[in-house]
């Protein structure tokens, strides 16, 4: 059967996707509905992490401000809902267009810088968004805003109910993964990857790398805003806390744990991060300490992240053939 993935890691990822597709039934069967909540939250974050990996992993643009786009997406649900506009298509259109505009304006400035300066300036812009939301008294300021009802998609698939929202999330995650997969293998992606490794050479080959990177930055922001839109619907409550720069740092960690610049790494990294967080915090109140040490160890010893380990299996199985 040649449609099966050939490599060991490929099969593991295929199995993972299959489990995720059946998760609501599995959790119902073992009578643990809380797990679906946890998984929903993890997959929402995974969409954000997949989008961050597009610029960080494939493009070499380390942003410490990516969580801003989660916030923008969430407030694009929250603010219209506050005025009783619950149309999901409106929310979607707002999230995509506002995030794209903000990414275009700030990215145009950020991408003039490199390295540490890029990290700092992306962080600065995201803090700007954070403090803006913090100052919006009308929309709850630091108390946050309650969303009373989920986005409505009339004549389409409803978001109501834990299971249908889960499938919304899962479908958008798959779409994001597929889009990134196509993108990095298309002409556009080749320019992005080439610019990460050797930008002067790419310019000498005739590529205006700045323009391509900016376009990539905008696309990543738009994908991330989908995560924000889903998160607003999922929690039914939004607040500036969603977008503090520490949140952006967590997203970077999830990329690194999973494997920078790989397709499924971000998904696996996010799942591991969320599960670890959950398990450790149930064991001890000092879980942050253990968590921090684990993360440092992962970064130090796990070069290439979890995907890196899995591809070691690929090489081993090849050696046996």
């Amino acid at each position: 059967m040649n449609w099966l993935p050939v490599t060991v890691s490929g099969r593991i990822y295929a199995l993972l996707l299959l489990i995720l597709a059946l998760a609501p039934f599995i959790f119902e069967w073992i009578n643990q509905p809380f797990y679906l909540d946890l998984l929903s939250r993890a997959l929402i974050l995974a969409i954000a992490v997949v989008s961050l990996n597009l610029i960080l992993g494939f493009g070499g643009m380390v942003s410490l401000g990516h969580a801003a786009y989660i916030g923008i997406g969430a407030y694009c649900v929250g603010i219209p809902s506050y005025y009783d506009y619950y149309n999901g298509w409106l929310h979607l259109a707002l999230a995509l267009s506002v995030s794209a505009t903000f990414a275009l304006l700030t990215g145009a400035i950020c991408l003039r810088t490199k390295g540490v300066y890029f990290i700092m300036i992306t962080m600065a812009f995201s803090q700007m968004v954070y403090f803006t939301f913090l100052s919006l008294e009308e929309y709850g300021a630091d108390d946050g805003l309650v969303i009373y009802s989920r986005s409505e998609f009339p004549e389409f698939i409803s978001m109501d109910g834990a299971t249908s929202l889960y499938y919304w999330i899962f479908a958008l995650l798959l779409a994001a993964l597929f889009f990134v997969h196509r993108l990095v293998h298309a002409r556009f992606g080749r320019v992005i990857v080439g610019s990460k490794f050797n930008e002067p050479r790419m310019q000498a080959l005739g590529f205006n790398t700045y323009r391509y990177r900016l376009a990539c930055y905008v696309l990543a922001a738009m994908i991330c805003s989908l995560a924000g839109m889903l998160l607003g619907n999922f929690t039914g409550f939004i607040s500036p806390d969603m977008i503090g720069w520490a949140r952006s740092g967590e997203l970077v960690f999830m990329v690194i744990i999973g494997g920078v610049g790989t397709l499924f790494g971000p998904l696996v990294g996010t799942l591991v991060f969320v599960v670890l967080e959950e398990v450790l915090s149930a064991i001890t109140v000092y879980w942050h300490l253990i968590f921090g040490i684990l993360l440092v160890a992962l970064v130090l010893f796990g070069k290439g992240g979890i995907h890196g380990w899995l591809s070691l299996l690929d090489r081993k199985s090849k050696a046996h053939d």
Partner: protein
Amino acid sequence: MTEHLLRVSSLHKHFGGIAATDDVNLAVKRGQVHAIIGPNGAGKTTLISQLSGQLKADSGDIEFRGRSIINDSAASRARQGLARSFQITSVVMQMNLLENVMLAVQGNSGHSFRFWAPVREDREMQEAAMASLAEVGLQDRAGLIAANVSHGEQRQLEVAMALAMKPRMLLLDEPMAGMGKEEGAMMVDILNRLKGDMTILLVEHDMDAVFSLADQLSVLVNGHIIATDTVDNIRGNHEVQKAYLGDGHA
């Protein structure tokens, strides 16, 4: 159409108090190989970088195909047909040779705001890239990661990438840098085959290679061109010998 494809007039570039490029005037005829020689630190790479746009000149003008390109970006100059290779190998080490050359083909074939179709399935691009690899004798090494091939092969890849851009003119910055005797001879062969079809500005240390390839020769010393002439005349030029060639080539 002007006879000269590239014309450089009173180009200046200072780094602090040092004149890296000091009133350089240069004209390269269509179809010729014009070599630039000079001792270490004469400013050869600095000159190439100003021509290709990686460095901005302080003053002076560069005309390519009769049009000033002094304010154009490196990317824009490349798209106009001015392709360079690098003295210090500058390829994408993490990609294989074919992927590297395909980037060069891609840079020369319209914009790359195409988000969906996989490059791997683009037969036309692949064939063009393979043709360029074949021109430098690397067709059998196409699938190897650039970091894993020999230094000489990386140098050949540099030239293949420049060729894949289908340039009107090549700027070659020491294509033989760090090569062994055999590899060097191979590179001379490759360049000899290009000679006549391609206009080339060649910076090279290897005197035998320069003498066998070049039509015109300029001698750069301390950022200034002290002589430009045919190979034979330069060989007989006493001043040049004193400044650079030494007694071995007298």
